[in-house]
C-alpha cells in the first residue's frame, strides 16, 4: 500500500529542505517548470481525477480551468493554500504541515505554475503555532534554494510566497471569506459568481486549494495520472488522509487508498470502540456532515459512496459517537460552535443557528416540547443550500437533520422525561 503523502513523515519530526530533497523532493518542480507548460500540468492533474480534499470534493483540474490563461489575463494572479483547518474533528492537514512542509511548498509551486500565478499565500490556522514556525522557515529555505522568488530555476518565472496566520475564525475556511480576511477585511463570504478564479484576492484571478490537495501534486507530476488513479480502491483517485476521533481505542490519522471502508478504518486502524462502548453514529467527514450509523460501516469512504449513503466525505476525518453519549447534547455542542462561528452576514445563519442552539439546550435541560422538534425540522429545511449566503449554515444542519432522522427517539425521550436520559 502506497502512502505517497505521509511515507516520509515521522511523528514529532519535520523534514528540512535537504531531507526533503533526499526523498526526491522538488523533482516535480524541476520537471514541470523546465519541461512542461502550465497547460500540461493542468491536463495531468485533470486526468489524475484529483478532487479537492478540503471538503467539497470538486475536481481540482476543473477548478483551475476557469482561471483566465491568455495574455489578456489580469495580473498578479494568486495561488492560496487553505490551511485554516478548523473543521471540528479534523486534524489531517496539521500532520502534513508539521511533518513535511516542503511537500506543501512544492505542491503550491506546481499549482501556481499551472495557473501562471505570481504571488502565493499560506493561510494558516492561528492555533497551528508549530506549523507556523516550520512553514516560515521552510519558505525561507525554498527562497534560498531558488524554488521561490525571481527567475525560478533559471526559467524566468517568478513566484512570491507568504505565510499568513489567521485569527481563528471557522468561516475563514470558506474560500471567499478567506480572501476577505487576507485583504484585511471582515471575514465575510463573497457572492459567487464571480468566482475567485476570475475575481479573487484583490479582485484578481485566484485559486484556493486545500493543503492535502496541494500535497498530492508533486506525486502526480512525478508518477503520472494513471499511477494516481491506481492508488485508490474506488472510482475516486488517490489516497486520502482519514482520521478517527471519539471513543475508539486508537484515535488518529492514516493515509489510505481512497475508498477504504469505514469499518476497516474504524476497526482495523483505530482499533475499534473502547471496551464497553458501542458505536451509535459517525460523522464521516467533520462536524458539518450528516450522521451515518452502524449499518453504513461497510460503505467505501469515497466521494461517491458516502454521498450515496446520504452524507458527505467532507474532510474524511470521522467523529465517532458512542452509545453513552447523548446525541442531543452532541448536536447541541456542534450547533454552539456553528452559531458562534457564523459571520453574522445573512439572516438565516445569524439568527437561525442561535435559535437551534437554544432549542437543543432546552431539550437537554428538560424544558423541550414537541413544537421544538417542528422548529428544528423547519431550520433544517430553511437553512439549506441556496437559502443562506454560504455553506456554513447548510453544513451545520447536516448533523442535525440526520440526528433527527436516526436518533429521533432520543429527542422524544428528552421531551417526555423532561430531562436528558443520558445524565439523569
Amino acid at each position, binding site marked *: 500500500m502506497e502512502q505517497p503523502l505521509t511515507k516520509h513523515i515521522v511523528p514529532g519530526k519535520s523534514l528540512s529542505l535537504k531531507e526533503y530533497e533526499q526523498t526526491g523532493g522538488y523533482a516535480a518542480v524541476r520537471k514541470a517548470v523546465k519541461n512542461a507548460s502550465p497547460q500540461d500540468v493542468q491536463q495531468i492533474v485533470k486526468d489524475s481525477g484529483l478532487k479537492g480534499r478540503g471538503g467539497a470534493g470538486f475536481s481540482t483540474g476543473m477548478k483551475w480551468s476557469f482561471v483566465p490563461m491568455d495574455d489578456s489575463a489580469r495580473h498578479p494572479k494568486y495561488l492560496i493554500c487553505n490551511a485554516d483547518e478548523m473543521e471540528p474533528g479534523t486534524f489531517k492537514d496539521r500532520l502534513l504541515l508539521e511533518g513535511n512542509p516542503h511537500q506543501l511548498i512544492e505542491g503550491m509551486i506546481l499549482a501556481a505554475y499551472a495557473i501562471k500565478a505570481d504571488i502565493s499565500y499560506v493561510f494558516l490556522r492561528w492555533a497551528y503555532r508549530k506549523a507556523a514556525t516550520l512553514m516560515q522557515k521552510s519558505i525561507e529555505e525554498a527562497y534560498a534554494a531558488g524554488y521561490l522568488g525571481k527567475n525560478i530555476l533559471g526559467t524566468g518565472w517568478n513566484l512570491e510566497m507568504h505565510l499568513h496566520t489567521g485569527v481563528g475564525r471557522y468561516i475563514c475556511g470558506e474560500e471567499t471569506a478567506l480572501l476577505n480576511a487576507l485583504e484585511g477585511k471582515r471575514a465575510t463570504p463573497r457572492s459567487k459568481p464571480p468566482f475567485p478564479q476570475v475575481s479573487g484576492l*484583490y*479582485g484578481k484571478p485566484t485559486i484556493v486549494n486545500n493543503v492535502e490537495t496541494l500535497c498530492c501534486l508533486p506525486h502526480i507530476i512525478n508518477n503520472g495520472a494513471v499511477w494516481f488513479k491506481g492508488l485508490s480502491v474506488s472510482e475516486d483517485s488517490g489516497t486520502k488522509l482519514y482520521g478517527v476521533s471519539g471513543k475508539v481505542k486508537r484515535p488518529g490519522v492514516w493515509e489510505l487508498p481512497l475508498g477504504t471502508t469505514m469499518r476497516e478504518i474504524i476497526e482495523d486502524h483505530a482499533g475499534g470502540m473502547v471496551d464497553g462502548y458501542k458505536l451509535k453514529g459517525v460523522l464521516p467527514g467533520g462536524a458539518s456532515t450528516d450522521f451515518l450509523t452502524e449499518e453504513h460501516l461497510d460503505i467505501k469512504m469515497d466521494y461517491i459512496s458516502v454521498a450515496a449513503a446520504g452524507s458527505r466525505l467532507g474532510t474524511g476525518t470521522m467523529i465517532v459517537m458512542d452509545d453513552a453519549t447523548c446525541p442531543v447534547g452532541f448536536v447541541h455542542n456542534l450547533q454552539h460552535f456553528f452559531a458562534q462561528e457564523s459571520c*453574522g452576514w445573512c439572516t*438565516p445563519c445569524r439568527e437561525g443557528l442561535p435559535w437551534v442552539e437554544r432549542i437543543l439546550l432546552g431539550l437537554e435541560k428538560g424544558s423541550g416540547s414537541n*413544537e421544538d422538534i417542528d422548529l428544528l425540522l423547519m431550520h433544517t429545511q430553511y437553512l439549506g443550500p441556496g437559502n443562506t449566503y454560504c455553506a456554513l449554515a447548510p453544513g451545520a444542519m447536516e448533523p442535525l437533520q440526520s440526528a433527527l432522522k436516526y436518533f429521533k427517539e432520543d429527542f422524544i425521550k428528552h421531551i417526555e422525561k423532561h430531562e436528558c436520559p443520558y445524565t439523569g
Partner: protein
Amino acid sequence: MVIHIDNKEYNIKSGKNLLEACLSVGLDLPYFCWHPAMGSVGACRQCAVKVYKDENDTKGRLVMSCMEGVKDGLYLSIEDKTAKEFREQVIEWLMTNHPHDCPVCDEGGACHLQDMTVMTGHDYRRFKYKKRTYTNQYLGPLIHHEMNRCIQCYRCVRYYRDYAGGDDLNVFAAHNHVYFGREKDGVLQSPFSGNLSEVCPTGVFTDKTLKEHYTRKWDLTMSPSVCNHCSVGCNTIAAERYGELRCILNRYNGDVNGYFLCDRGRFGYEFVNSENRIKRVIIRNRAGEASTEEELMQHLQPLVSMSKIIGIGSPRASLESNFALMQLVGKQNFYQGISEDEAHLNRVCIDVLQSGSVHSASLKEIEQADAVLVVGEDIWNTAPMMALAVRQAVVKTAGAEASQHVQIPVWLDSAIKELAQEDKGFLAVLNVSASPLDELATHAWHATPDDLSRAAFAIAAYLQPGKLQADNFSEELTNQAKAIGEALKQAKNPVIITGVSSYNDNVIKAAFDIAASLNTAGRKTGMACVMTECNSMGLALMDAPAFNHAMDSVRPNGHATAVILENDLYRHLTPNLVDNFLNKCDHIIVLDSLHNSTTEKASVLLPAATFAEGDGTLVNNEGRAQRFFQVIPNADTQVKESWQWLWKMQMLRSQKVNGHVLHPDELLQKMETDMPQFKGITSVSPGHDYTIHGERIPREPHRYSGRTAIQANKNVSEPKPFYDGDSPLSFTMEGFKGVPPSWAVPFFWAPGWNSVQSVAKYQDEPNGSLKGGNPGVRLLQDKKKENADLFFKDVPEQFVITKDKWLLLPKFHVLGSGELSGYTKALEVLSPELFAIISPKSAEALNVKEGDMLQLTDAGIAYGSLPVKVLDNMCDGVVFVNAGSRGTVGMNWGTRINLAKVN
C-alpha cells in the same frame, strides 16, 4: 424583454435584477439590505422568490431576487408557497431579537421593518428565549442610536462608508452579536450622517432634532420644499405640527439629490422655530405698535410714495419676492443685494453656461461623469451634495471599468467593489486648500486663485494647442496640464466644476475654456458653477446692478426710501458700505424672518415668511427653477410672504388700496412676459386653481390623527382648517389620494409602504425618474451657438506673494456655512469658530503661531483681529476667514489686505 411573474407577462428593461424588475412593475416584494442607490449584497435573504427553468418546471428553485439578473422569458413566482413561507420565516428570525417597542419607537408608523413584517404575514412569535441587548452610543447632536432595534441589514455601514466615504462608523463583532456603531462614543464625522435615519429600515439611527420635538410621522403636515442652505437646491419635504417645523425629510428627485441630503440641509431647519424670529410688524420711533394692518398701511403710505424708492433684492428670497420688489420700485431702482464682485462672478457663470458651448450639468449628470475636474471651488464645503455626487462618479467609473474584465452586473455591489478594490475614476481637484474630496483625487493641487486659473488655462492650452497665448507656463503646470487634459480627453462624459467662492473670474473662464475644448460631435461638455445662496442664480438672472450702484443713485438728502428684501446686507458687504447707504436713506423698510444687523436699522420691519410659511420659486446653480410650498399655516400671525407685503405696498403706491388678492402664479406670468430669461417659469407647477378630478392635493396623510385638544387653551371650538389660496395643496387630509404629479409630492406613502421606501411607488423604476418626469424646469437651455466661439484668452500673471499684502478669501464649512442653518443648535455646536487661517509658511513669514491674534486691515477698513489657525495643505500668500455662518460679516473677498500680529 418579457418575463413571467406568477404567470403574468411583464415587459422589463434588461440589465435589472429580479427585485428591481418586480418593484418597477408595481409588485410588492419585501427587502432590507438592497437599496436602489447602493445595489445588492444578498445579506438579509428577505426578497426570496421561486425561479423556474421553463414553463413546465413545477418545482423551481428558491433564489434571492436581488442577486439574480432578468433573462428574457424567465419564469418566476412571488406567490409560491415555499417562497412566501421562507420570507415569513426571515422576518421571524429578524424578530427574535427585535424589541416589541413599536408603540414607543421613534420609527413606529414609518418603519420599513413594520411594513415588511405585515407584508410577509408573520404574526405569531415562536422564539421563547431572551433577546440580546446592546449598549447604545452617543453619536453627536444629530443622530440618535438605539442598537437593540438593529436587524443587521448592513445598510448603515454600506451607506456611511462605501457610499458617503465616512470611516468612523463600522460593524464590529460577529455572529448574532454584530454591532453597528463607532469604535467609541463620539460625534459622527461625516457631514452626510443624517441619511442614516432614512437608510436604516428601522429605528436604530433616528433624527435627534426631531426627537427634541417629536411627533408621529403620520401626524405631520407635509409640503414639497426646496433646501435653503446652498445653491444646489436639493428637494426636501418640510414637515410641521402645531405651528412648528418638526423635521426635514428627503424628497426624491432623480435629477438632483436622489435619495439623500447633506446634514446642513436636513438639520438646518430650526431657524424657522427660532426665538429670534420676527413675528410682528415693528415700526421704530413711533409711539405704540401698529396693531392693525390699516394702521400699518397708513404709516407706510407716505414712505412708499416717496419719489425715490430703492429696492435691494436678495439671493435667498424667492423669485416671486424679488420680482414683486422690482415691480414696486421699478426696474431702474432694483439692485442685487450682493457685492459688485459677487454679482460679476455670477454673471460670468451665467454667460458661460448660456454660451451654447457647454451643458449646465445636473447633480445626476455629475454622478454619471467618468472624469471630473474641480477648479477653484471647495464643493465639499459650499455644495456638499455635489461633492457626494462626485464621489459616486469616481467610484462608479472605477466599478464600470473593472467590470469590463469580468461579466458582472453593475447592481451586484459587493462583487463590483471586490473587483474594483481601491481603483478610482479620474478626479482632479485644483483648489486653494485641501478638502476630504482630495482623498479621492488622482490629482490634488493647491494654489492661489490666479495660479489655479493659470493651471486651468494650461489645460485648455493643451487641449486646443495654438488657440491660447500660452506663454511662461512652468514645467510643473505644463506636465500637470498634460496629465489632466489627457484624462479628460479620454473620458466619454467629463464634467468641469467651478464656482464663485474663490472670487476670481479667471477661474471660471479657464474652467469654461477646458469644458468647451472637450466638446465632441454628439456631446457638449457638462459644466457646473457653484454659487453662494439658494437663489443666487435666480437673482443673477434678473440682471440687475449690484448693491454699490444703489448707493450711487441716492443723492445726499435725496429723500429716498429703501426697501430691503430678506437680506442681511452686513453679511454680503463691508459694514462701512452698508452704513453709508443706509445713512443716506430717509426711510428703511426691511422684510425679513430673523433679526440681524440689517433689521436693526429698519424704520419699518415687516415679518417675512420663511420657506416653511410661504410659497415661492428658487433657481439652483444648474439653472433649475423649483417650487417650494408653504407648510406652516400662518392665518393668525402677521407673517406673510415678502411678495405679499410688497404687493400690498405697490397697491399703496399706485393708490389702489383695495386691490385684488394676488396669486403667485400671476407674478410668475408677469415675470415670464417681462423677462424672457425666465421663459418656462410658469410651468414649474400649475396655478393655484389646479385640481385632479376636482380634488386638491392634501398635505396631511389620511392616517393623520385629526384635530386634537392641544390648542383648546386658545379656543375650544375646532378651528377651521387653514385655506391655502396660493397653491393647489390643501391643509387637510382630504383630497386626491393617488400619486400626485411629481412637483406636488408632499410625502411618500403607498398602501403597505409607510416608510420612505414607498418612494419606489412614485418612480418609473428604482433609481429612475419620478412618474411624469422629475420636477423643476431648466431655465438654461442648451442653446445653439449664436455667436462665434466664446474662448477666453487672457491668462493672468502668476500670483506674487508679498509679505505685506495677503489675499483675503472666505473659508466655508460644510455644516457651519449657512446664515439660517446656524440657528440649529446642533449645527452651531459643530461649526468652527472664527479664525484667520494661514499656511505654515505664511505663519512663519508673519511670525505668528496658533492662538496668536492677527489684525486685518484693508485700505483703511479695520476688520478687527482674529485668532490664528495654521492649516496644512493650503497655499501660501492667502488668508482665509471663516465665512457664511451666523455672525460673520462681509469682507472684500478676493482683495489683498494687510496682516499684522497683535502684540
